[in-house]
């Protein structure tokens, strides 16, 4: 049996109330009032599609045997590198082996489901035992556009394999159309689109029924067979019409998180799938349909393995960990839409030394340190000479992963002098459970939430952006652990 072994999703902590966008920008286009409801999830200033994919991926890998992962697929239309495999960064950050196959999937918004299909069929064909598929997007609408409100940032991740499958892959049907509803050229930062009515009437209302019918015919199914239908369409009126056209009962429709997250691009249908799996029951048949330059329809059947895995954070966990993004201008600064003054300290040249990055790739991207085999002291970064003053053994180390360890705050501060997109820059000393210590930036928190002794988890983040050379550099930051009630 081939299918999904585990799943998770990630939604950034910060949510922007769409009415705030309207208050700030509605004067330019009053018609955006129609979208000024609910909130959109906004990646922190140190997040992008790669870091969000890592967050979802790590959560998804909890309890998984990393050695059984043979491949890493990353789907997104907003990846930081055109050349330099983004999935390669993801592979190290997830703590996986080097000897795996990895690939970036992009272009159209159906890239997420296409990557998932590629992984499933690779396992089916016997080419791999297991793969991890992550999809993430961070698309931007121009200020005062409807898309600025509609789009949200999120990620989803799935481990696929043939053992302990929670949702069996039963089949798929795909269509591909060069449909220019939304597009971005090589140098575009913001989304561009054609007429909404054309996208809705010709795109959603023709392509979705077409791909669904294709799947039903191929496998001899009818809509009533599905416990949940998951499809990407952010137009509220069109969804109502499509539900009727496709024959989806109210309880059979998986919500699209438009009010909580927003349209999350290549991740959208997979974020919804992960959300659906959170409450799925054995025997449920799920239909997943993506949209963007065509459609993929995937058909799963939930097994009795569902619910046997320990709870991860997932979409619902992330949704509960929200903080309001206020004011709207903060969003503009974080996305570098508003060129705010960060001070001259921000202008220091960060010459990424690729040979040094290569030597330290596991340490920097994976948060691997060492543990002394003589005295068992974990240490970061890797030390040739043991840091334990009572030991001092030379070259008696083994690799030791810190990214999955919790730590506690030993000291901290909030720094107004440091150049930051979100001052004060909060950082401090983190002592890891089981040993080891490092000074980390803290993120996804306010200074008032930080205290000595408090627990933190590690999160992969963009450490710096070298605008001159277009380099996104990554490292890990500490996030104070929230109690989710």
């Amino acid at each position, binding site marked *: 049996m081939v299918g999904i072994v585990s799943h998770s999703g990630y939604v950034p902590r910060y949510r922007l109330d769409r009415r705030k966008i309207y208050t700030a920008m509605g004067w330019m286009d009053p018609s955006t009032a129609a979208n000024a409801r609910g909130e959109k999830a906004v990646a922190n200033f140190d997040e992008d599609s790669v870091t969000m994919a890592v967050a979802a991926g790590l959560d998804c890998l909890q309890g998984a045997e990393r050695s059984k992962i043979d491949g890493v697929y990353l789907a997104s239309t907003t990846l930081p590198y055109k050349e330099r495999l983004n999935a390669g960064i993801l592979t190290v950050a997830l703590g996986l082996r080097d000897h795996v196959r990895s690939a970036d999937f992009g272009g159209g918004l159906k890239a997420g489901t296409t990557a998932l299909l590629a992984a499933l069929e690779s396992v089916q064909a016997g080419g791999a035992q297991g793969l991890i598929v992550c999809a993430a997007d961070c698309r931007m609408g121009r200020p005062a556009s409807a898309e600025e409100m509609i789009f949200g940032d999120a990620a989803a991740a799935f481990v696929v394999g043939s053992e302990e499958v929670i949702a069996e892959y039963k089949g798929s049907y795909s269509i591909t159309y060069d449909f220019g509803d939304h597009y971005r050229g090589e140098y575009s930062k913001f989304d561009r689109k054609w007429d909404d009515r054309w996208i809705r009437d010709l795109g959603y209302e023709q392509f979705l029924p077409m791909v669904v019918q294709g799947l039903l015919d191929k496998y001899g199914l009818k809509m009533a067979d599905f416990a949940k239908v998951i499809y990407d369409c952010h137009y509220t009126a069109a969804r109502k019409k499509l539900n009727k056209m496709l024959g989806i009962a109210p309880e059979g429709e998986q919500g699209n998180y438009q009010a909580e997250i927003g349209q999350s691009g290549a991740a959208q249908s997979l974020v919804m799938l992960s959300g659906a799996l959170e409450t799925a029951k054995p025997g449920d048949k799920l239909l997943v349909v993506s949209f963007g330059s065509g459609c993929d329809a995937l058909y799963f059947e939930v097994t009795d393995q569902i619910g046997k895995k320990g709870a991860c954070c997932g979409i619902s966990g992330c949704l509960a960990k929200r903080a309001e993004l206020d004011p709207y201008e903060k969003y503009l600064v974080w996305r570098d839409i508003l060129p705010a003054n960060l*001070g*001259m*300290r921000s202008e*220091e040249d*960060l*010459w990424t*030394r690729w040979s*040094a*990055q290569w030597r*330290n790739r596991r*340490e*920097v991207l994976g948060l691997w340190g060492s543990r002394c085999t003589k005295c068992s*002291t974990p*240490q*970061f*970064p890797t*030390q040739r000479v043991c*840091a*334990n*003053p009572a030991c001092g053994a030379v070259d008696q180390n083994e690799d030791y992963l810190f990214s999955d360890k919790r730590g506690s705050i*030993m*000291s*901290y*501060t*909030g*720094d*107004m*002098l*440091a*150049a*930051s997109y979100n001052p*004060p*820059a909060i*950082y*401090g*000393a983190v*002592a*890891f459970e089981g*040993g*080891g*210590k*490092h*000074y*980390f*930036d803290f993120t996804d928190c306010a*200074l008032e939430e930080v205290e*000595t*002794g408090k627990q933190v988890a590690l999160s992969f983040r963009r*450490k*710096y952006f070298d605008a001159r050379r277009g380099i996104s*550099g990554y*490292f890990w930051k500490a996030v104070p652990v929230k109690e989710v009630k």
Partner: protein
Amino acid sequence: MADGIRDKVAILGMGCTRFGERWDCSAEDLMVEAFVECLADAGIEKKEIQAAYLGTHFDEVNVGKAALPLAVTLKLPFLPVTRVENYCATATEAFRAASYAVAAGAYDIVLALGVEKLKDTGYGGLPGGGGRGVKAFMEMANMTAPGMFAQLATAYSAKWGLSMTKIKDAITHVSMKSHANGAMNPRAHLRTVVTEEQCKKAPMIAYPLGLFDCCGVSDGSAAAIVTTPEIARSLKPNQSIVKVKALQIACSSGEEEMYTDWDGAHFATTRLAASKAYAEAAVGNPRQEIGMMEVHDCFSITEMVTMEDLHISPKGGAYEDIMSGFYDLNGQVPCQIDGGLKCFGHPIGASGLRMIYAMYEQLLDRVPEERKVRNPRLGLTHNLGGYPWRNVAAISIVGRD
């Protein structure tokens, strides 16, 4: 068996520029200013200097690398000149090297000069790029000096259960005292008296450190000419001789940084260097025997913690001593008698020598009545270069013959 530096080296002369925003001066101007005073005080001619040590830290925004800026600026005639750098301990390192050269018998008369031109950066605070080379921005948090030291406060509060409010009270007293001392000193960078309210209401720099908890970033230079006590006595038969009693350095081993035993609320290096310095200077009870101090108060919290690490205040007891005025100018062990880094200023590569200069002028009774320490027996200076978990602590003890 080595027996240390005590009484083997004497200070023949010293010089120190006015510290501050010396917009009109280059590092070369500052070197000349300190050297001219120092040479005149020593009462010798330039040609009698046999070797020299230059201390500078931020070579990128200052004089550049190597010892040549000193040799060329002063036109030292093909002397052996060496540049030393060890963070904020740089000037004390230059002094230590010069003293060791004399004590070793390699030379009779040696110059140590520290200089730093910091005000060509274009912004307040220190420039970045302290340590770790190419790995710094790859895996070090986005830290600045105030934020690194501010963490002493949160860790100290956790360690000793002292509320952040009380810590703020104590560090406010520390800063007010240094401002009071600095205000009287014409060579100090910051010469205003500040009130408790000003300190506590100042803009936050790095929690809980406000503007007045941070030292001045200044331009300046200081110099010393050292020789043997015999030569000093023969050249200056009618005055007291200031002799070196101890010079100790301790560098972090990575233990504080990577091993979890360290509480983040003290300087392991300072404790060790202080113990060794007291042994070298034959000081049995520092709280009773040290007459005055200049310590590394880059931030007020650093000074507070250092009072314990120098074994003057009991561990966890700095608050009581500070609040009782023990370290004020008229207290038992006056500290930051010239204003400290806080107000005299902190040109990194010059600070250690400036501290020794403060001791030197007190020991030779050269300060006006209002600034005088009542009984300036032994004077202790202390630098702390780096950050709390990875640093160089340097201590010197000097005394009058």
